[in-house]
């Protein structure tokens, strides 16, 4: 198929798709005229039922907890799939990360990169931890906190070398942390089943004050596990790609 034929076929297909799409949206009430009833129903009952003021996280981990389990396992499978796809093929060898010529003077990382990276690593770990543990109060949650935590490890690589990055994040530890995160989420749900409630029911005490860190039952716990899993998955992904780029050679 020549590029011209491909473009013509694409034009026909996109015209059909756009027509169906606009026909579908002609039947909706328009932008800004959300009629409910799901949104207002949740908003009027969320504090009474879960004592959480971060309604989006309450939806994510309590009202729609089952969907979040599925999404988390997509993340888990993608990280595992990358480890399988980027395996060492026949005819490749992996260089050692330690420099073989010991007396070679490497140019050090420039000061302009090193200084901000070192200064910011500590605060970013703190911010990531804060985000992952405050899902029920503010706009935060396990997913965002986990990604910010993973970024701190990338900063360590940027300010130093690959050996430092590998030393503070060995693959075995990351695998274990990721497994604990994913299994913890499922285990919280299964404990609810063992206690006689539906799967992922909020069975822990709901706390006194709506929006405190210790309130909202299982939402805070699940957010913590999700943060662990997302951080470990992203550090694994970046570590895999770093190893491929820096260490793996052919022949």
């Amino acid at each position, binding site marked *: 198929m020549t590029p011209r034929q491909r473009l013509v076929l694409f034009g026909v297909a996109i015209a059909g798709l756009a027509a169906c799409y606009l026909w579908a949206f002609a039947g909706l009430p328009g932008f800004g005229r959300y009629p409910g009833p799901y949104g*207002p129903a949740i908003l009027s009952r969320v504090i009474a039922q879960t004592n959480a003021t971060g309604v989006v996280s309450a939806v994510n981990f309590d009202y729609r907890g089952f969907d979040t389990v599925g999404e988390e396992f997509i993340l888990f499978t993608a990280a595992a799939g990358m480890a399988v796809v980027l395996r060492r093929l026949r005819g490749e060898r992996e260089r050692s990360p330690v420099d073989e010529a010991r007396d070679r003077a490497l140019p050090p990382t420039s000061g302009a990169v090193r200084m901000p990276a070192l200064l910011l690593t500590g605060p970013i770990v703190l911010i990531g931890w804060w985000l992952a543990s405050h899902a029920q109060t503010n*706009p935060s949650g396990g997913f*965002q906190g986990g*990604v910010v935590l*993973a970024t701190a490890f990338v900063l360590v690589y940027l300010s130093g070398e690959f050996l430092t990055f590998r030393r503070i994040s060995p693959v075995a530890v990351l695998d274990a942390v990721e497994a604990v995160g994913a299994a913890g989420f499922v285990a919280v749900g299964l404990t609810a089943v063992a206690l006689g409630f539906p799967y992922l029911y909020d069975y822990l005490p709901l706390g006194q004050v709506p929006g405190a860190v210790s309130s909202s039952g299982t939402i805070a716990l699940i957010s913590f596990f999700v943060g662990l899993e997302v951080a470990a998955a*992203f550090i694994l992904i*970046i570590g895999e790609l770093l190893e491929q*780029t820096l260490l793996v050679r052919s022949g």
Partner: protein
Amino acid sequence: MTSVAAATPYAVPNALMDTLQVTLLVLVAAGAVAVVRTRNRMRLVLMLSGYGVLLAVLFFAFQAPDVTLSELTVGAVVLPVILLLAIAKVRKRAE
């Protein structure tokens, strides 16, 4: 189902919010075209990072701070890092 709309201290006039959202939507549409038309790989990574920040501001104007946080951290930091690593791997083999 009817809920009383109380006047909060954060309310802005509807026309102002509409203008802001329309401007950001037009910028996002232009940003998408700019990203697609970039062919150089390095420039593509930077354009994607800028597009991610623009999307994050749009989500903020849609009253969704959680999605803004996610899009900022993922679209402006993690995705460019992953892309840069893949590009470095692919380019090294070509030399």
